């Protein structure tokens, strides 16, 4: 059987079930608000959002692979490209771009111009340290973890903090090859 061609982000987005963007945005807002009430510390909320994102990511990756038909990426550049062009489109309905590659190709920025999560959000003064969209960085980290890439994902720019764009830095820490239960020298 010939391999099935990978589908474009738009094609998948048109086919998956969608919910009202406002409902989604408001639900996410309610979650963040509740976390702030429960945990009180902004730093803790950042951590919790990242962890929640991670837990989503490790499950989401399979859906992404199943529905997009993308095959194994040859290098990290291709991986980030797929995340930005197909992944963001499929799950958030927006496209991102990849820039700021470092010399050895292990660190880059994913730039989002549009982000449905923040449609109605203004950060109050007592929450200035909050990374409101920290769940997204967790999702990316979790998803890449499942395809044997250890990464570190951090926000460099955030519209809510007065920047002009959203910029996520994705840094490849190491490639964990699939492990076999036996080693040659053991």
């Amino acid at each position, binding site marked *: *059987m010939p391999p*099935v061609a990978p589908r474009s982000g738009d094609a998948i987005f048109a086919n998956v079930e969608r919910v009202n963007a406002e409902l989604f945005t408001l639900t996410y807002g309610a979650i963040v608000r509740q976390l702030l009430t429960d945990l009180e510390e902004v730093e803790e909320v950042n951590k919790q959002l990242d962890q929640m994102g991670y837990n989503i990511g*490790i*499950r*989401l*990756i*399979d*859906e992404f*692979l*199943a*529905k997009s038909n993308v*095959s*194994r990426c040859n290098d990290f550049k291709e991986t980030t490209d797929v995340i930005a062009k197909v992944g963001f489109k499929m799950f958030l309905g927006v496209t991102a771009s990849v820039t700021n590659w470092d010399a050895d190709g292990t660190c880059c920025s994913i730039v989002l111009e549009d982000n449905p999560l923040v449609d109605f959000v203004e950060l109050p003064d007592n929450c200035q340290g909050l990374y409101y969209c920290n769940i997204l960085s967790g999702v990316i980290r979790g998803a890449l973890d*499942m*395809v044997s890439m250890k990464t570190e994902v951090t926000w460099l720019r955030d519209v809510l903090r007065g920047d002009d764009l959203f910029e996520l830095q994705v840094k490849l820490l190491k490639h964990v090859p*699939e492990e*076999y*239960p*036996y080693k*040659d*020298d*053991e």
Partner: protein
Amino acid sequence: MPRPVRISFRALNRLVWTAFVLLLSNQMSIWMLICVLIIYCQLFSFSVHDNVGSGKVFGMAAIYSLYIINKSGGLIYYKDYGSAGRMDTNDSLRVASLWHSMHAISQQLSPVSGCLGIELLQADTFDLHCFQSLTGTKFFVVCEPGAQHMENLLKFVYELYTDYVLKNPFYEMEMPIRCELFDINLTQAVQKDRVVFLGR
């Protein structure tokens, strides 16, 4: 009367032979060889009820059973269809872990790098189609020899798995699947006319 399955002996002989050659050329440890030998022996010893044709439940070609194994080789889902090839829990667990090891060894045996493991095992009484997702979960189906479109079926099962298992907040990753919605949708998918898979 159960009798041992005849899994392409020629292929298995070649597997063992290759293992020896690799051992001689120092590319493979003695442990791996032992692994191959154990699998070789095990395959001869387990038996399934072998009555081809009686499992024809779904029109075109019969599916005997479906397995899902997690990335560490544990069986997380097993379902059989019809009377042929029905196994008890122990046997199905054994088949799953055997297949996991066979799959891993086949990747190591490949002379060129980047081998993704066995996709199809053909025997005179059954075919075994395997699909491994990039995250390491393996789906495999044991069916009548020559059954068509099994790749599409497995791909579809993968989609069902992402929809009804992974999205279930009460499902714990890597654990046995006990999701009713998954069962229902899987049964429908398998029973539905194969046209669904042809068109995909």
